[in-house]
Each structure stands twice: as structure tokens, then as C-alpha cells.
């Protein structure tokens, strides 16, 4: 939970992004190596380590999925690598659809919108599971979410390439 401690945020899935960002800037203003450019080598090293850790923590806490994975890891919940077969089929359908319509901007945009909506909805569900302290169930959801998130990025890249 060290990242939550660093950012003085109560460890939970739902966090206030504004608070996180504010705290991040505050911490970097204090610990960034630029503040120690003419300090001793020892202090420079400490600043480098602190600042790296703050950046790493911010990267993890600001992202819903990374934060979820981090919470699960901190609670020693083993990541389950099974994906339910129904979703596996859905996954393949999405990939096929993208391949078939690789040059149809409209269709990819529609699919992108759909995925964004599904992802939002699933993250809400994940938040409920975390709230109920049902970490095993939350962990079971992660594979689907990670796929959806990666697929969303893939669609965005494809849209960018077409434009």
C-alpha cells in the first residue's frame, strides 16, 4: 500500500483524481531532482529515487486498471489467468470484426464507442466488487477488463492511422 501512503490517500478502488493530481504535483515540487541539482551526490540519489517512486505511483494510481491490479497485489490475491469461454468467443468476434473492417473509419468509430461504454460499465461493476471487499470476484474480472482496455487502445491507433 506504499503508493497510497505516499499520496496520503485511503487505499480503495474509488479515488478522487483531482486530489491525486494535486498531491502528485505537490510531492514532485518537493522531491524532483531539479530541486537538488547543486546538492550533494547522496541527496541527488535520494531525490532521484523519491521522484521516480512518485512518478511510478502516480502512473499506477491514476489508471483504473493498474490501480485495481495494484490493490489486488497488495492484498495478495493471485491473478487468475482463466477467461470465461463466453467472453473468449466475444473477444475473437471483436478481433475478427476489426480485421474485416480495418479500413472503415465509421465502423471502427462505432465499435470504439461501444467498447468505451462497456468498459465504463464494467469498471463500475468492479468498483462495487471492491466496495463489497469481494476481491476474488474482482480478480476474476481483470482479464476481461484488460482485454477491453487493450482493444480500445488498438482501435484508437487504427483510427489514428486512417486519419
Amino acid at each position, binding site marked *: 500500500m*506504499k503508493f497510497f*501512503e*505516499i499520496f496520503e490517500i485511503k487505499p480503495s478502488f474509488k479515488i478522487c483524481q483531482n486530489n491525486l493530481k*494535486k498531491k502528485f*504535483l505537490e*510531492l*514532485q*515540487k*518537493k*522531491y*524532483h*531532482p*531539479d*530541486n*537538488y*541539482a*547543486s*546538492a*550533494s*551526490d*547522496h*541527496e541527488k*540519489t*535520494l*531525490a*532521484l*529515487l*523519491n*521522484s*521516480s*517512486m*512518485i*512518478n*511510478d505511483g*502516480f*502512473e499506477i494510481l491514476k489508471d483504473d486498471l493498474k490501480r485495481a491490479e495494484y490493490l489486488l497485489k497488495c492484498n495478495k490475491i493471485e491473478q487468475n489467468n482463466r477467461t470465461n469461454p463466453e467472453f473468449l468467443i466475444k473477444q475473437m468476434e471483436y478481433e475478427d470484426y476489426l480485421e474485416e473492417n480495418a479500413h472503415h473509419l465509421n465502423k471502427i468509430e462505432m465499435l470504439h464507442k461501444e467498447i468505451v461504454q462497456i468498459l465504463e460499465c464494467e469498471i463500475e461493476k468492479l468498483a462495487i466488487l471492491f466496495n463489497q471487499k469481494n476481491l476474488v470476484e474482482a480478480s476474476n474480472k481483470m482479464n476481461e477488463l484488460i482485454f477491453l482496455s487493450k482493444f480500445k487502445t488498438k482501435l*484508437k491507433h487504427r483510427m*489514428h492511422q486512417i*486519419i
Partner: protein
Amino acid sequence: MALLQISEPGKSTEPHQRRLSIGIDLGTTNSLVASVISGMPTIISDGEHRLIPSKVLYQKNDVLVGHDIPEHKNIISSIKRYLGKKLKDIDTHALPFKIDKEREDIFIQTQQGLKNPVEISSEILKKLKQIATERFQDDIFGAVITVPAYFDEGQRQATKDAAQLAGINVLRLINEPTAAALAYGLDTKKEGVYAIYDLGGGTFDISILRFSKGVFEVLSTNGDASLGGDDFDQIIKHEIIKQNSLIHLNSEDHEKLNNIAKMIKEKLTKNDHLSEQFNFKNHNLSVSISSKTFENLTINLIDKTVQCVKNALFDADLNVTDIDGVVMVGGSTRMPVIQKYIRQFFKQSLLNDLNPDEVVALGAARQAQALSGQSDDDTLLLDVTPLSLGIETMGDLVEKIIPRNSTIPIAKAQEFTTYKDGQTMMKIHVVQGEREKVSENRSLAEFILKDIPPLPAGAAKVRVIFQVDADSMLTVSAEELTTGNKTKVEVKPSYGIDDKSIRKMLEDSFMNANMDKEFRSLAEIVVEANQIIELTEKAVTEDGHLLDENENHVIQKSLLDLKKQINLNDPQKIKEAIDKLNNASTSFAEKRMDHSVQSALSGKNINNIDY
């Protein structure tokens, strides 16, 4: 609180003595030096010129730089294009100088023998330092040097080495677009998202920055390391060659035509149509070109920059409409055709009231001032890695460890395993770039991790740690975890010139030895010593209970010894005493850390951090 304890920056010392800091824009075509004078970033001229051409001439007994060079044919120019590169990285046809083609690294033939781009760049840096020293009649404490955001590790390391060779204490390397944003930040401290469009003589950079709550965050950066104003000159040159049917041109002719082309380009910024007569090899030639023709001929080049802008916006997850301001940097942005297209693309007027040639150096001066602890300005700069960093895995594939546009400094660890039974060695090949295949990326360093215990395939665990510091410089280390037997190797990316050669170049340079002494002068080391004494005494007062009798004794003795040495005025002895005290108090610093963190993070050794 799980962070390491450090004293508040800038508050641990007595008020500093005057520390002169400079900002250096080491450009492909021109270089500048600036400093904050009476609170204002100011370009320092050599008495006559503010821009110093990045040109070097080696003569038998001396080296001339910039305006000191008379008309001459063996001038080395645009050396920045070759800095940090190997011979195989560059196009050896049509080089403006003679190189030794037998070697892997770039060596240029000069009157003083073979010289590499680091040495040549250091001559330009020496000149800039000299201009500043003469202006202030005082030593320079340190410098911020700017590099294109798109410079890779090798090019950054080469820039640092050149500075070291010139006897310059590098406070920080910062990206040119970021420096430009800092220069503008002086008067327009409006919160918002800015695009910095930087088209110089030889490179193009685009950065997207957000300024909020006193912090400049670089959101993304993109660019083309071999696209610049020179390419626009080439297009005009080819037009001259075409219109006059010129043939059989040698390199001297090309150089002359380049200059004519550049002049025409500059005149075209003020005229819609140009008919120019000039003398070439005793012939009267003419060329006629309109700004419309120029636009048609260069549209591909402009498109290339716009494509980079689109990529940068995409990486920052932003649309054109999210941009609150567009800052124009680099002399080439004076071209009306560039301004027209960029204005159209961003649908807004451009920020170009500072001189585009000077804005980078001005920003660097401001940052140098802040880094030397001499300014009350508390703007912080959070920069990003321009390119992804990773290592080679099976099948010529790259595993990215630090993705591009990660905020720096950053450290990441990843575990790898063996693929053969009984494998005892592993090759760690560090690469930089966005492509999936190793061979298509830039190779930075390669080393072998030995003494892995012979285990079945997949059983051994090797952790590779990448640490990128605030200069965007990478350090890689690897350790074998299975046996607890830690084998550590640290590499700094090379660019063809190894550490040994750098050291030798340093030793060879007698001048440097003197300069080195200059900036590590007695006064400075005493400041450092006092700072450390104060820090240590404060720590002992606060947390002395963490020390056992023996540790306490060693620290007290080292303190006493250092205080004694300060009065004896021998910088070398003081340095030794500082090192002794630092060593004695390292474990104390570790003890002072929060215990919950201690397991995850012990001491100053990055290899022990659990990421």
C-alpha cells in the same frame, strides 16, 4: 510517509555565494549562450554577435570557432547531426567533410589529425563558455544545455561528454521545446495546454505541454531528427541547378550553392516573388522563384512536420481544439509558408513574439538559474522520455520496459527467465525505439549476465532494472534472483565511443585539467562541506537514537575531521573528508527511513528497490 528523508531543497545551506549559471543552445547551425542578468534571461554576445555559427576549423596550432573563422574550405559544420552516431547510421555520400571510412565510429580528418564529433562539439561549447566567462569576468558554476526532444540516449550521452570535455559542469540537459516553453512562461503564466513547434536548421521537434499549478508537464513529444531548414535550402538549390542546367558540381560548388539557396530562402520570407542574379564560377546565373512555387515544392516537408504534430496530439490524447497556444521556435519558423500551414492546422494565431533563434537559450538560462538555487521562481519542469526503452527477447522481439512519454525520472523493473536447461549466461541487449523488431530499433548497449545457476529452462529469474534520470539518461542493471546471488551489471548506453576513450580524451586535454580545477575550487568545496556538516548534525539531533554507540562514534569522528580539514584549505583533503563522512552516514540515512519501506527500498542502491 514512505519517502526518503531529504532536507528541504535550498534551505540546508547558508545563503549561497554568487553562482553564475548559463543556458546553452548547442544548435546544428548556430549556438547561443544566455544567462539571467538582473532577473532577465539575456543572450550574451561575444561583443558583436549573439548567434555563434556552429562551425569549427582546426588549424595546425589552434582551433577556431564561429565568427573567428575566415573564409576557408576545411570548415566543419552541422556537427550536431553526427553527434552520438556511428558511421553506419549516417549517409556518407555528400558529407561536407572528409571522414575515416575504415572505422566504425565517425572520425573527421583535420589539420590536427582525426577528431570525433564529441571533440568537435566540445570546441563550440568551450567557445560559448569563454564568451560567458569574459562577459562576467568570473567562473561559471554550471550550465543547462538543450538537446532536441527527439535525441536518443546515445546522442544525449555524447552531448554530456562534449560538455565534460569542455570543462562545463552540466546541471541538466533539457529538451529544446521545453526550454522554449519556459522562456515564454516568464510573462504568460496562463494555465493551459501548449504546443511547441520547433523547426531548426537540422531538426524538427513538437512537444505538447501542460502548465498548471506552477508545474510544466510535458505530455508528449515527437519529431524528426533529420528534418530542418537545411532541407528547405536543398529544395531551392535543386531549383537553381534545374533552372540553370548545372552539371559536374564538386563539394565546394555545393557549399556555395547552399549559401545562395539559404539567402534566397531568407529573402522569400519578405517577398512574394524573387528573381535573383548571382555569380557562380565566373558565370552570371539567375533563378526565379515565387512563394507559391516554394510552397508547392516544400509542401511534403511541411506535411512531414504536421504528421509528427498529429502523432504527438494522439499520444497526449488530445485534439487540435484542446491546444490553448502554439509557440514557434527555431529560425526556420520565420518562413511564411510554415506559419500559414501551422496557423491553419491549429486554427489560431501563433506565439512568436520572442526571437525564434534565441528563445531556447533564454529558457535554458532561466532553468540554469533555478537549478543553481539562485532563483525564487518555483516553476517545476516535469519532462518525459522521448522514445521507448526495452530489451531484446527471443525472436528478435523487443520487450518494452519504459514506454515513451513516461514522466521522468522513472525506474521500472521486469523479470526474465532462461529458455534453455542449464543456461548460465544471459545476453541483455538494451534498445530504444518504437518498432517491434530489435533490428529496427536503436541498439544502446549489450552486456552478458554471467553465473546464473544451472537450472531447468524457465526456473532462473533475472530482474532487469531500468532507471532514467531527470536528464533522460538511462542506467540499466540486471540481477539473478533465484539463489539470492546477486550479479549486478550497470551499463551506460554507448554511442561508439566507450568510457575509456572518453577518459583518454579528457586526460589528453590539458586545458580541461585546468578548467576542472577552476570549477571545483576551494570555495565551492567548502560550501559543500558545510552543507554536509549541517545536514548530518541536524539528522543526529533528530534521530540520534537510531544509532548505536559505535556508529555514533564514527559519525562524530568524521564530522570533527571534516571541520578540521575545512580550516586547512586543501580541496583534495576536504573532498576526502566529505567522502568519509558520506560513507559513515549512509547506513544512518537508511535507518532513518520508514521501516515499512525499508524492506522495499533500502539505501541508495536502486537494485534493491521492489517495483
